[in-house]
């Protein structure tokens, strides 16, 4: 059991959100026989007692391999998942996990999802998608904005009907074949087309008024310019990077204090990634948002984050500032991860790679969870005793019996 030590709170900057002894177990649904018979139920230990603090205005990275509980943590923090146990401290106010869900709106957290292709509704214009989150959260007080939204559709319907009507008149006039009736019909049709044309032109000017100025400002800020053009585009008309920018705008428009970015760049190409991260960083600085940045890519975390927490099978293995962890990794797992990433330097080789695979989270190994793969493990100590997260250097925590500086 990790005890929350008082040192954990003393960080540079004031804490925004503290997560204390968070646990999340998913029950394993067995077959019919297992359900009928009163056997012992198995649980996936997705998150097993983790604690960390996110400070105001910092970028906190959560890294680890797939299945280590990163995304579950994110889902809990935006209220998509209910934790098994644990409590939260939001700006020094303790909130138990039972009260979390109704208070999730008070905890102003928003999420940017991994897949920009499925996170936006294909039937909504980008601008409307962003505005929609304001409507859902009852932030659109004026009814005019809502009316404008409806008007946008009305203009298109009027154009369509008038075009249909003029075609109808043409056909009628040819069928009648009376010269005077023909002339009248032609003039009427022309008038209708003219009127509808004027209306459409007018509605184009209207578009500027329809578009919500808050959304337009934000679009320029996240790099979607000219904003007015992007406002009326559908998701399929723009590229993946632009879609992710719209996703970020949708999260930011609610003025969150905590933004959770769940692998926002892993679906994007390398040449676009840095652009998205750049806009995230500038947004973070101008709006003073804290970001929980979840990623499996340590290289991105190294250049983007302020503090980092490395997770392994539901536990925090190492936590500290980016610089001290990457220069001086203390946990063998962290070191292996850093070594394993292919660097863009030919001839650079990885050493001391751990063998085997990530263990089953249903029956995690006893003692240190990394010991079956660890090249430094000492038996039987690592096999029996679970290491506590302890502070070896200022602001550098490690959960290992034999941290690498002692070898």
């Amino acid at each position, binding site marked *: 059991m990790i005890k929350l030590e008082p040192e954990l709170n003393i960080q540079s900057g004031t804490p925004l959100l503290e997560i204390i002894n968070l646990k999340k177990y998913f029950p394993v649904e067995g077959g019919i026989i297992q359900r009928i018979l009163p056997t012992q139920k198995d649980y996936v230990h997705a998150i097993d007692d983790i604690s960390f603090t996110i400070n105001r205005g910092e970028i906190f990275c959560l890294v680890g*391999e797939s299945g280590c509980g990163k995304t579950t943590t994110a889902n809990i923090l935006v209220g998509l998942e209910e934790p098994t146990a644990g409590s939260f401290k939001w700006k020094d106010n303790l909130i138990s996990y039972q009260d979390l869900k109704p208070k999730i709106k008070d905890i102003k957290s928003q999420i940017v999802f991994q897949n920009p292709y499925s996170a936006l509704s294909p039937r909504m214009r980008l601008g409307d998608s962003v505005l929609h989150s304001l409507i859902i959260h009852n932030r659109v007080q004026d009814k005019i904005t809502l009316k404008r939204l409806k008007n946008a559709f009305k203009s298109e319907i009027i154009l369509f009907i008038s075009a249909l009507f003029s075609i109808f008149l043409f056909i009628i006039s040819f069928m009648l074949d009376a010269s005077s009736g023909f002339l009248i019909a032609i003039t009427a049709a022309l008038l209708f087309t003219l009127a509808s044309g004027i209306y459409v032109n007018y509605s184009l000017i209207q578009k500027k008024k329809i578009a919500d100025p808050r959304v337009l400002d934000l679009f320029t800020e996240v790099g979607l310019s000219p904003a007015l053009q992007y406002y009326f585009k559908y998701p399929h008309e723009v590229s993946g990077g632009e879609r992710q920018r719209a996703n970020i705008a949708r999260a930011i428009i609610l003025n969150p204090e905590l933004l959770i970015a769940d692998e926002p760049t892993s679906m994007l190409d*390398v*040449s676009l990634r840095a652009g998205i991260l750049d806009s995230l960083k500038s947004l973070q600085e101008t709006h003073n948002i804290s970001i929980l940045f979840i990623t499996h*890519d*340590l290289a991105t975390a190294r*250049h983007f984050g302020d503090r980092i927490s490395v997770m392994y099978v539901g536990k925090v293995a190492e936590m500290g500032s980016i610089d001290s962890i990457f220069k001086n990794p203390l946990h063998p797992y962290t070191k292996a991860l850093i070594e394993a990433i292919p660097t*863009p330097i030919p001839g650079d080789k990885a050493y001391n790679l751990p063998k085997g695979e990530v263990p089953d989270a249903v029956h995690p190994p006893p003692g240190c969870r990394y010991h079956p793969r660890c090249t430094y493990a000492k038996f039987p100590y690592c096999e029996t005793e679970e290491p506590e997260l302890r502070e070896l250097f200022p602001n550098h925590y490690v959960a290992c019996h034999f941290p690498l500086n002692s070898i």
Partner: protein
Amino acid sequence: MTSSILSSARKTQSNDRYYNKALLEIKNLIVEYPVKEGNVRAIDDVSLTLYRGEVLGLVGESGCGKSSLGFTILKLLKGGVIRSGEISFNDINLVTIPEGEMQLLRGPELSMIFQASQNALNPLQKVLNHFIDTLKTHYRWNDESWQKILELLNRLEIPESRLEDYPFQFSGGMQQRIVIALTLILNPKLIIADEPTTALDVLVQARLLEILKEIIKEYDLTVLYITHDLGIVAEITNRVAIMYAGQILEIGDTQTIFQNAAHPYTRALIEAIPNVKDEEKKLLSFIPGHPPDLRNPPLICCFADRCSYSQDICHSKKPQSINLNFENGVQHKVKCFIYDDRYGHLFDQK
């Protein structure tokens, strides 16, 4: 000092081992996907030579045509049409030979490792059956086969006891190893590896890359390694081809590409990759804009709109590929006006 020795060592080695005999030669290949609004030109005038025993990396962003090229070589392209060009493999033109003969080449001669290995395995069949099926389909099942299967499993570090397991009982990394073993059992000459490690975790990926490297050497394979990750390319390949908007913008020795890239796109791409072993935190650079629409592309340089060096000439003509001479003697080609004698003076800086 050491680097010069290394490079000279590389030179002799490279001349000995590679570049003797071409195994696969692609000439002026054009592949298009007919769609409603015209033709999407996925592969635009690509010429490429694969030498026996080398690992050629094919790098590019998503949608640049790298997977299309892989599928074209195996003639497994769905919806695409080969408009012109030639693919000669051991003096056989793969573009014109009938499907029946192509079927005989797939497997024992040319083979492919797919991106999502879990989809390549039959969920209803035990792993052992996969091996037997593969060998029997290609009429190669004999008394020594059993020995060969065990040898390969041993080599790829798959425990023998797991032959009776179903694919879902394996982890992603293990499944990928099984797929590689299935590919190798027929002794192909050329393997097209289409992002074989993309879906895997870093540690598993690193281990698999090590195994792949050893196997390529042992079995003397020729590999076309398709990936978007320049880090993997730096680790595993001898030569690299950089692909963008259906064209190969630069091709050359891996060492040269990473240290002395010629094309502005290659340079920008290499700068955009974060390196985990950097001493200091730094701002990452990126390439503004996005790749061009490949529906009926205009005859200009495809990278001109995003290039920081671009001049008027780049927006009016299509560059031809130009041979560059580097010390190590490996052929280096680049498609850029900067290196063209006729237009080079238009650019202030190189």
